[in-house]
């Protein structure tokens, strides 16, 4: 039948030739293209730092990059740094997970139920703006100087951000999709599950990254002020270094924090890209 073959022909022309797979050399080139600017940036920081050091500015307290990195190397070989990083990361993950559950549920309810939004919508934004340090006295009085206080502070910092990410995600669902969903007969819970949640996902994941930043900021603030006796943490290390005016160790720990931040951010970016690719946004 003529229409049949015409249509098949149109489809084939519309889709264009099949893309050929990438070979190993191609992948290596792409990796290098992504990597060299980062290496160059690190080199640049090193050079500037070295130059500042050479001018002799604050030379008794400000170490050069060489001394700092050898300090970092020594710390990396002892167990304390990794133990502290492990404790801090565990707190971050647990606090974030609690915030994720609370924030997602509250956000979804607020986004889908108009009276609830009118009631607590601005409260959530208010809580998000409230600096996490403001929760510290409250948490210490409530829980004492222990891990619960720290987890509480992180949760209070991240949950409003996560709730707002959900609300934003729901608000930015294209009306056409909602109309389509309604027309195929999605209602109530099935509408929420099959349409609202997946449609809100890209904005939500972008918000999750921001919430992670809130978590991380709140955690380090909390750890500096809520010193849990006998448990090493990044905050604890900072505190000890500050007491001993140990600048090389302080900077070394800061470098570790920056690296951790970059690694986690890379994880979020990877998830984000995967979703965007699935949606055809990249």
């Amino acid at each position, binding site marked *: 039948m003529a*229409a*049949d073959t*015409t*249509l*098949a022909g*149109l*489809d084939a022309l*519309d*889709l264009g030739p099949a893309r050929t797979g990438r070979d190993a050399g191609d992948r290596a080139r792409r990796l290098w293209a992504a990597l060299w600017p980062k290496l160059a940036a690190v080199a640049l920081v090193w050079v500037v730092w070295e130059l500042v050091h050479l001018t002799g500015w604050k030379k008794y307290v400000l170490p050069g990059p060489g001394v700092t990195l050898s300090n970092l190397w020594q710390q990396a070989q002892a167990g304390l740094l990794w133990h502290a990083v492990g404790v801090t990361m565990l707190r971050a993950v647990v606090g974030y997970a609690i915030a994720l559950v609370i924030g997602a549920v509250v956000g979804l309810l607020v986004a889908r139920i108009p009276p609830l939004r009118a009631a607590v919508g601005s409260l959530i934004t208010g809580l998000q703006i409230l600096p996490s340090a403001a929760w510290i006295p409250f948490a210490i009085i409530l829980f004492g100087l222990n891990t619960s206080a720290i987890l509480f502070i992180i949760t209070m910092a991240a949950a409003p951000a996560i709730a707002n990410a959900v609300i934003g995600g729901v608000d930015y669902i294209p009306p*056409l*999709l909602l*109309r*389509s*969903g*309604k*027309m*195929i*007969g*999605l209602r109530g819970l*099935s509408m929420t599950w*099959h*349409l609202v949640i*997946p*449609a809100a*996902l890209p904005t939500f994941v972008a918000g999750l990254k921001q919430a992670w930043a809130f978590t991380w900021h709140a955690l380090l603030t909390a750890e500096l002020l809520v010193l849990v006796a006998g448990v090493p943490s990044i905050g604890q290390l900072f505190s000890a270094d500050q007491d001993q005016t140990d600048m090389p160790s302080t900077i070394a720990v800061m470098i570790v924090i920056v690296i951790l931040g970059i690694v986690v951010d890379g994880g979020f970016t990877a998830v984000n890209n995967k*979703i965007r690719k*699935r*949606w*055809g946004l990249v």
Partner: protein
Amino acid sequence: MSTTAVTQTAAVSLAGVSKVYGRGGSAVRALDQVSLTSAPGEFICIIGASGCGKSTLLSLVAGLDQPTSGDITVNGRVAFMFQEPGLFPWLTAGANVELALRARKVPRSERRAQTLELLESVRLGGFAGKQPHELSGGMRQRVALARALAQDADVLLMDEPFGALDAMTRDVLHDELDRVRERVGKSLTVLFVTHNVREAVRLGDRVVLLSSRPGRVIKEYPVPIGRPRRMDSAPVAELAAEITDRLREEVSRHGS
């Protein structure tokens, strides 16, 4: 409602339907006293210039919006195809169709086979696993058609579904739509909104001409042309010219 009732009564019936948006001085009367009845299985094309409330009309029939006054009766299930396919970008073409089956509570064991059958019916059997963005505009609109068919609808509302497609793809899809309607195996009533007069004559059993601001039914044109039709055939062009003249007359009324 029994199936015999469907065949005896009108599929869609509008009686004195008006729709006003806003209130007071800024109120806009989109539709004014529109009455329209379609027999089951009839293909009605609704045509008019900008501001004639064509899309409003379909939204009212679909129940997405409520009329200010008048009655709308629809016998059976309604499906809606928009100008944009409105496919869910996180689902594959197959999963998009399957979700409509699922919403209709088709048992899981039957869904896969039915999905494939529906995609075959729009000649996209081999594309079930593709994401919408991997398909062309015409293919996406066919997936949207398969999804609409998955609703087992008695009334299919189409709001300029081919408006964003190139002329050749549109022509082929006109043939496809005719063929799919024959294949459905029941009388599928279609309300098809377009601003393309030839397209309306090519597809419709009847063409309804609406005025603009407010939208009123000016005239109804039966299309006594045998199928298969072509958009560029002489009888289609002739009737289209007549309707276009009447439409221009209506449009120039707003310029003076």
